[in-house]
């Protein structure tokens, strides 16, 4: 009679009958990539764009994903900021999938070469997810085994240990991963270049003042070498895409500039970029960002004779018009007025399908890939690290910057020669802010530079220069995100970050 009670699930596999097929194994790795599309990582409605609103670049009147409370410095561990909760969860979700894959792939019937490559992909992804944790929360529990309840009470590992593991995973991945994939159906998989570029980003963060408190120059040199390795990578074919605006359009996905992207796909899964940028106006650029743009001659608006306060948007760095919609700009076939985008007077066009031409399509799901790392970023990483590593910038620093500025359409794009390290630092930081504006990198930049306490304290202004509200940044607290109360409840061994 016992047999009568033996029933098996018929709509899902069990851990016993899953890892026996090749396709199942491939599918398990696919799920590791799927974690890139979560709210807490690089997906959701517009997580990466909203992250701009925690910086002087933009304002979110609606606290979307909880970034406005971070901008205000009023975020707490009680999860008044959704992203602080989601990033932790989704990063660990991806890590769990990668750990399972790495632990189980050996027993699968796949070809050994393929197994090796796929394992390397999983290690790259694991490193990427751990880097999210190490960049925002600092020290976190370091778990490399298949999820098990015994991991539930592990405390936070020292941050250095987590970073060492990230670098180890990236080194191992870079050794195995191909520079390019030959099959069209493999586009989007992690490459050697992706692993090396992520390594450069990790090392740049480690060299930066936030964590490199001792000012160890060697760390900058390591970061510079890592970035240079990507620039010199044979066979990868990385290059700046000639048209800055078009780089962020669907037609030019996976271009020569792209190093590692989230491969969004509508209608199955995607983002709300177009809705957010055109309709919600929840990434409303601030006057501070607009003012930061170079004039067309590559000088600041204060220095350049081209600046006309009566028409502040004329003769600017072309990237301003290619990134931001401002009052008076032609957008979607009409002239934008000061009340079209009420929150600051501006909206962002980068990463949306909209430009000057009439376009009334409003996709609820946008599928433009998000570039987690693109080549311009690598060039700027190199310039920054190399400038810091040396007593004064060498030609390679200039070259890297010139490439970016030239593509931007600045004329002249060349920088004055003989800049001091500090002058060059300011230019690199501004260049980085402008080139990557609207892409969600600036929040981490101002934290690693330890400039957030300066630029995030004080009022923010709309297009007309009227203050909207006053932001605060507590340097004793806000450089790192809190561990949420929920996680502390579930695992009392976790320690909270200082001053939360």
């Amino acid at each position, binding site marked *: 009679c016992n047999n009568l009670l033996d029933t098996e699930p018929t709509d899902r596999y069990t851990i016993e009958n899953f890892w026996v097929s090749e396709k199942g194994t491939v599918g398990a790795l696919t799920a590791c990539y799927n974690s890139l599309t979560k709210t807490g990582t690089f997906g959701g409605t517009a997580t990466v764009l909203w992250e701009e609103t925690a910086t002087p670049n933009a304002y979110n009147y609606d606290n979307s994903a909880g970034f406005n409370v971070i901008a205000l410095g009023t975020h707490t561990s009680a999860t008044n900021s959704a992203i602080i909760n989601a990033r932790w969860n989704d990063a660990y979700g991806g890590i769990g999938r990668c750990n399972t894959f790495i632990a189980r792939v050996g027993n699968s019937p796949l070809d050994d070469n393929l197994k090796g490559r796929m394992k390397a992909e999983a290690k790259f992804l694991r490193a990427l997810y751990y880097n999210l944790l190490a960049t925002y929360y600092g020290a976190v529990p370091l*778990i490399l085994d298949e999820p098990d309840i015994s991991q539930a009470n592990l405390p936070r590992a020292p941050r250095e240990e987590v970073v060492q593991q990230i670098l180890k995973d990236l080194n191992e991945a870079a050794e195995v991963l191909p520079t390019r994939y030959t099959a069209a159906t493999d586009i989007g998989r992690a490459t050697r270049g992706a692993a090396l570029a992520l390594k450069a980003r990790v090392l740049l963060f480690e060299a930066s003042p936030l964590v490199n408190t001792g000012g160890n120059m060697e760390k900058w040199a390591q970061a510079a070498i890592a970035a240079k390795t990507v620039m010199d990578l044979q066979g990868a074919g990385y290059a700046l895409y000639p048209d800055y605006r078009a780089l962020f359009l669907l037609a030019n996905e996976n271009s020569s500039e792209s190093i590692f992207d989230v491969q969004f796909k509508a209608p199955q899964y995607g983002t709300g970029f177009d809705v957010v940028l055109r309709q919600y106006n929840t990434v409303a650029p601030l006057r501070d960002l607009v003012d930061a743009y170079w004039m067309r001659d590559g000088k600041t608006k204060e220095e350049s004779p081209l600046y006309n306060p009566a028409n502040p948007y004329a003769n600017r760095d072309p990237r301003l018009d290619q990134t931001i919609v401002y009052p008076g700009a032609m957008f979607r076939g009409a002239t934008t007025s000061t009340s079209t985008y009420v929150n600051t007077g501006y909206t962002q066009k980068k990463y949306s399908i909209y430009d000057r031409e009439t376009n009334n399509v409003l996709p609820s799901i946008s599928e433009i890939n998000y570039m987690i790392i693109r080549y311009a970023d690598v060039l700027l990483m190199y310039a920054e690290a190399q400038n810091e590593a040396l007593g004064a910038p060498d030609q390679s620093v200039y070259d890297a910057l010139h490439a970016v500025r030239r593509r931007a359409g600045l004329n002249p794009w060349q920088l004055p020669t003989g800049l001091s390290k500090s002058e060059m630092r300011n230019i690199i930081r501004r260049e980085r802010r402008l080139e990557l504006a609207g892409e969600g990198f600036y929040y981490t930049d101002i934290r690693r530079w330890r400039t957030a306490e300066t630029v995030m304290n004080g009022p923010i202004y709309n297009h007309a220069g009227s203050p909207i509200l006053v932001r605060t940044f507590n340097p004793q607290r806000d450089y790192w995100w809190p561990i949420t109360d929920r996680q502390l409840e579930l695992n009392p061994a976790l320690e909270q970050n200082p001053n939360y």
Partner: protein
Amino acid sequence: HELQKNGSINRSVSISFQKETLESAIRKIKKQTGVLFAYDPESLHLEKLHVPVVSFKDTPLSQVLEKLLTPNKIGYHEVNNTIVLQKMAGQTKEQQRAAQERRVTGQVTDEKGEALTGVTVVLKGTTRGTSTDASGRFTLSIPNGAATLVFSYLGFITQEITSANGEEINIRLQADNQALSEVVVVGYGTQKKIHSTGALSTLEMSTKANQPITDASQALHGVPGLWVNQAGSQPGQDGATIRIRGIGTLNNSDPLVLLDGIEYPISEINPNDIESITVLKDASAAIYGSRAANGVILIKSKMGRVGENNITYSTSFGVQRPTRLPDVLTDPIQYMQMRNQAVLNEGKLIGDYSNEQIEEYRNGMGANPIVYPASDWFDLVLEDGSIQQHNLAFRGGVDKTQYNISLGYMDQKGIFIANDKANRFSLDMKLSTQVTDRLRVGGSVTGNLRQFHEPGYGASTVMSVIMRGLPIFTDTLADGTYGNTWLATPGRNNIENPRMEVQEGTIFRQNQRFLVKLFSEYKLPFDLVYNVDVGYDKHDRFSKDFIPQMYTYNPKTGEERAFNGSAPRVRDWSSNHLNLTLYHTMNWNREFNGKHSFAAMVGSSYVGFDNRSFDAYTEGFFDNQLTDLNAGSTNQVARGQSSKDRLLSYFGRVNYAFRDKYLLEITSRYDGSSRFAPANRWSYFPAISAGWNIHQENFLQNVHQISLLKLRTSWGKMGNQAVPLYSYLSTVNTGSSYQYAFGNTIQPGAAITNYNDPDISWETTTSYNAGLDVLLWQGKFGVTADVFKRRTSGILRPVGIPAQVGNLGGPQKNIGVVDNTGYEVTLTHRNTVGKFSYDVLASVNYVKNEVVDLNGETIISGRRIIKEGYPIDSYYLLQANGYYQNQEEIDYSATVSNAVKPGYIKYRDINRDGKIDGDDRVITGKSMPDYTFSFGINLNYNRFSFNSFFQGVSGISIYPTANLAFPFNNGAGITRDWIGNTWTPETPNARYPLLTTATGGTENFQNSTFWLRDASYLRLQNIQLSYSLPEHLLAKIKIKKLTLFVNGQNLVTWTDFKLWDPEQDIKADNLYDYPMMKTLSTGLNVTF
């Protein structure tokens, strides 16, 4: 009995008389027939009278007597098998007149000869009647000639006496010992009530007659030991949750419901087809073992009776309206000013609406209400609902066969102005017949077709949208298109027009369910009876969700805005369930020496659930016209699944009673479930109970006041297996949630998403009960009291695990031990005074819930905590402690963040670490009531009856959040009670803190005691007046009975909770449930 009572006079006799006295002739008749004679020898002197020589053959006794008596001027009549002889007098005119109207007098006593007061005495077939006085005497004028009087009294068997003449009628009414012969429904059978040792509550559905009950669960309000909670009255979705004697967890606490022995959901049973509902509250449920831990509800459906062939029809019609809606601010100017004030208060430097905009609005309002509306969305999209019910039944029995055919129809129109309706067609057909002396077989088909519509986004979403509607939103433009607004409001990026969401798109759900049941009972030698029951429960569901493409228009510019993406879209979903129940029992009953009464039963049962479902989804429709899947073309998705669930059981019961005084019952059940790993699959559930009928003891035999005095006690173990299927297995999920596109081509993915505990096993409840049943003065007063303790160990519940473990969902786990202890007391009083009778019923339940063992752990989820020493799922909140009155106070206090400003809520720094965080929370308030109580008063006068029923709970808290619970929550509006009631330096102790938005002033809206609300209430749940038309009028049109009624449901609720109806889903803290309704209905019941 009836036939013998008055049949003597008609019996045939063969007798002959010689020349003899009348006295001797009577003696001869008496001797031969046994018929008794009564007469006054002093006045009749029979010994002096003579009879003719005559002989009779097969002649009716009446003819014989006439032959003998008439010549002697003696009359006769029969009373109670006794023939009374009286002198016949020559009649005067007065006597003739008196003869047309005569008076009967007499006295009514109980069996022991004590006078009964208030006994109703009615001339049969008329309304002429009286009642007995304090000494039990009565006088009644009746027409001359033979007439039948009916004597009725509560707690006694109604007696009819035929009076032929003016004699005095002295009768003794027999106590209604139904209590002795009455049976109660128990697991796998019935039992004499006097032998029952369990804590049972029985609801006779006749007591809920004419109430607009749409789901049978609603009828259980007020049943002792139950907490019945109905979350809203959405047509088709208005079943109540039932909790018996507390709860073990907030999940899976539903009792097992059986319809005539077969598991069947209460929502699928037409309340009109239910005869009675019996709730097994203690170890008496243990015979159902693995699923009895939450109590067992046994529903007995109506069946015909031999000799009573009735056609009944009942109908009612009612109108419905929400009991309570939030009092929302609908003045747009005041709304904008308050919102501006709120954001300025929380630190913004500019308001959300500029002064120019407000001024423009103010000036435009009169002339252009489309651009400058003052929308009251509750008013715009809600209207009165209606409900009608029809029930037709044919019930009866002929010879050895009983039948029941009943049909029901219910139609409900909800309160949304569109897409809100439900109907139900129900059927119950039963036949049972005695095929041979040994074999009885029967079968039934019970089923219904229920369907309902709700708006495309679902009723709860639409409720939230209505509660999010702002007065500045335009209803419709001049051309009828849906408006949005020309103003920008933070939080409102995509304007949800409530009218649009109500009217556009629809969800259609159809439920078709049939239970086919067959049974047979076969009498074997040695008093053995074998039963087989098979239930085949087929349940098919279909649903269609259609969301069209919706557009809103800027009322000022006319600009079109596509409201929704991925539209039009359709999801069709179909599921198919087949539940097979098979059980057989062997019963044995025997009495020895009239003292020892034994009963035994053994049986086994098998229950199998086979479920299948699939759903398909598509987009790519050209417009909003067609909703079939084939009419769409893009993003097509199909999914499906199947599962099996099995339960195998062996069980038995032994009863012993000694002289009906000392009672003992033992039950056992051994259950195996496919829900657990093989090693944890089987479990044993024993129970034992005892009773003592003290009133049967000799020392109480002469205490007439006590009709029943019984002590009961029980102990037993019961299980709960209610975890999702395969909770013990680690499963790998596939599907769209794991896919990824390489080279722009979707590739399938698979992942583990839940951590499962392979060791989970039964949740076990050990139940202890002691009870007392008392009936005094033949039922005039009754008391039932029970005390109980239910210890539930290995409580099954999903628990969270830290996200670092792969961000997996937590396992279903056996987490600990919870006690529910409490008592129930029910008091009844019934009485009759003349034509007036009344009864009063009151009951109160108390349950104390306490977590007693959790291995020292604490489980926190959201606002709730499970911790040893506290009720399960208590609220766990910061403790509000007034407001910060000034900056100085903030500077010297712990704060929840650095955004705190004067006028914000202050929280207590419980652990004194200088900051307010999760460690400062206190345990307070709970999600289940201490007390549930109810009382009803029923009055009957002549043909009128008046019924009222009140019910309520106390000691329960709710934590309303979100739209309208908090001001300007995520772009929503505000309720009027915030106006003028917020903190200012001048009003430091205002009801509410400094006005901020819920989204921007999160410091005020921390989970804290400030927002915890007492949800105790008392409700007049039902009030009814009915009138039965006189039978003699109805008889002319061949109607046996006709009753008209008016009924009011939920008309008045007393509570401190003003925002919403206090009876709501305890698991949901937002107020997005469909509202609770009050109903005013009228109708009639007719029996042919």
